[in-house]
């Protein structure tokens, strides 16, 4: 073991790595936002009593939860231009793929959260003349979302980590930049140690702030 760490490589390529971190964060953020919207729709349709509504949602969830994310990424990247006729760049197709993937998990969290709310809440609301939509928006979801925060954070942290897969398709995220840098500088140890810490800081910060939000909301329960 005659290896001397030289972290100067980080200092010299600071801006380059920061650019990658920015791509990682923005791809994750957009995928999360889209995934939340699709997930909410999935969660609600999964709860429908009508089979033709709930069954497609169930299939969607099963497909995306039971195939590798990398395969999904590849599939969207190659299949989407063929299906839609629109040429998409790697960043867009990766973001789409991650959105679809995370939405399956978020959909299950929404479903569980909504189901965990006592039926009496819905009955009380409906007995007052409030519609299904109003009941969801004003009564069920505000209570359910509190309970969903911990699993949401888990999924978000997981998403940040497997967003590194996009580097395989040439998206210049943190992992991709690190890869490029390590082949040009021959300093993979320093570079990958460093980006591991960057991922760790991002994810830990997220978990911490989620804990704080949770504690603040818990006052009411």
């Amino acid at each position: 073991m005659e290896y001397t760490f030289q972290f100067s490589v980080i200092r010299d390529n600071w801006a380059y790595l920061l650019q990658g971190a920015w791509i990682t964060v923005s791809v994750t953020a957009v995928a999360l936002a889209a995934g939340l919207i699709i997930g909410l729709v999935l969660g609600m349709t999964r709860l429908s009593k009508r089979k033709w509504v709930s069954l497609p949602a169930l299939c969607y969830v099963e497909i995306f939860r039971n195939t590798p994310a990398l395969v999904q990424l590849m599939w969207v990247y190659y299949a989407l231009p063929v299906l839609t006729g629109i040429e998409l760049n790697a960043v867009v197709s990766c973001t789409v793929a991650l959105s679809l993937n995370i939405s399956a998990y978020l959909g299950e969290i929404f479903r569980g959260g909504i189901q965990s709310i006592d039926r009496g809440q819905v009955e009380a609301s409906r007995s007052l003349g409030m519609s299904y939509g109003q009941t969801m928006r004003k009564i069920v979801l505000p209570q359910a979302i509190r309970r969903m925060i911990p699993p949401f954070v888990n999924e978000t942290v997981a998403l940040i980590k497997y967003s590194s897969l996009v580097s395989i398709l040439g998206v210049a995220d943190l992992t991709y930049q690190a890869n490029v840098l390590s082949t040009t500088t021959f300093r993979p140890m320093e570079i990958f140690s460093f980006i591991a810490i960057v991922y760790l800081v991002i994810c830990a910060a997220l978990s911490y702030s989620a804990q704080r939000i949770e504690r603040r909301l818990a006052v009411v329960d």
Partner: protein
Amino acid sequence: MSDNKPMVRVEGLSKSFGSLPVLRGIDMAVAKGEVVVMIGVSGSGKTTLLRCINVLETPERGRIFVDDEPMGVHLENGAFKPFPERQLNEKRSHIGMVFQRFNLFPHLTALENVAMAPTMVKKLVKREADELGRQLLAKVGLSDKVDAYPNKLSGGQQQRVAIARALAMNPKLMLFDEATSALDPELIGEVLETMKQLAKEGMTMIVVTHEMGFAREVADRVLFLHGGSILEQGRPEEIFGNPQHERTREFLARIL
């Protein structure tokens, strides 16, 4: 106390849970301003009957009218089909319901609980809805609990907020589903007092309860349900003083 026009009319109401029949062709009419108390053992169908009136429970057959308006489509073959959601919402908004387990919205304060439906359904502006909410909370004796969340209130206080919440929609009919059954004995009185006050003001009420004292004192008519049918009904002094049916006597002997 009541004029002749019925506020609620139920004809031939039947309902099963799976293969178990819970209502067997119920006929019932409740006059405007009348207070009807339904008694009977658990499983006799009284709660289900109550819940059918605002279609929280869907009967299989029969007709339901509230204030002379049907609550669903009455099909040729006797089957009952609930109205589509929007129509049903409008009708439900005129029927207040109070539940055994209060079902207050735990993420909202007492005032927000009361003001929610007027804002969402009647489209009152916040200021008006809040004003209404304060008035109603004062009416049930909870002026000092306006900003309290349900988990900071006693059971009796929660149930009184729930009554105020139902009253906020200015209902023409109030349904009480064992409103005091989940309460500690010392808290029952305050809720019954609020219900008595409502009855005095001329509210039409259908009350499922095990509080025979309340039935005796407040009811215009008592219905005794057994096995999904109304076995016996009459003025409280008749039912309690001189029950005609063997089952009624057994029930009263056990509960009194």
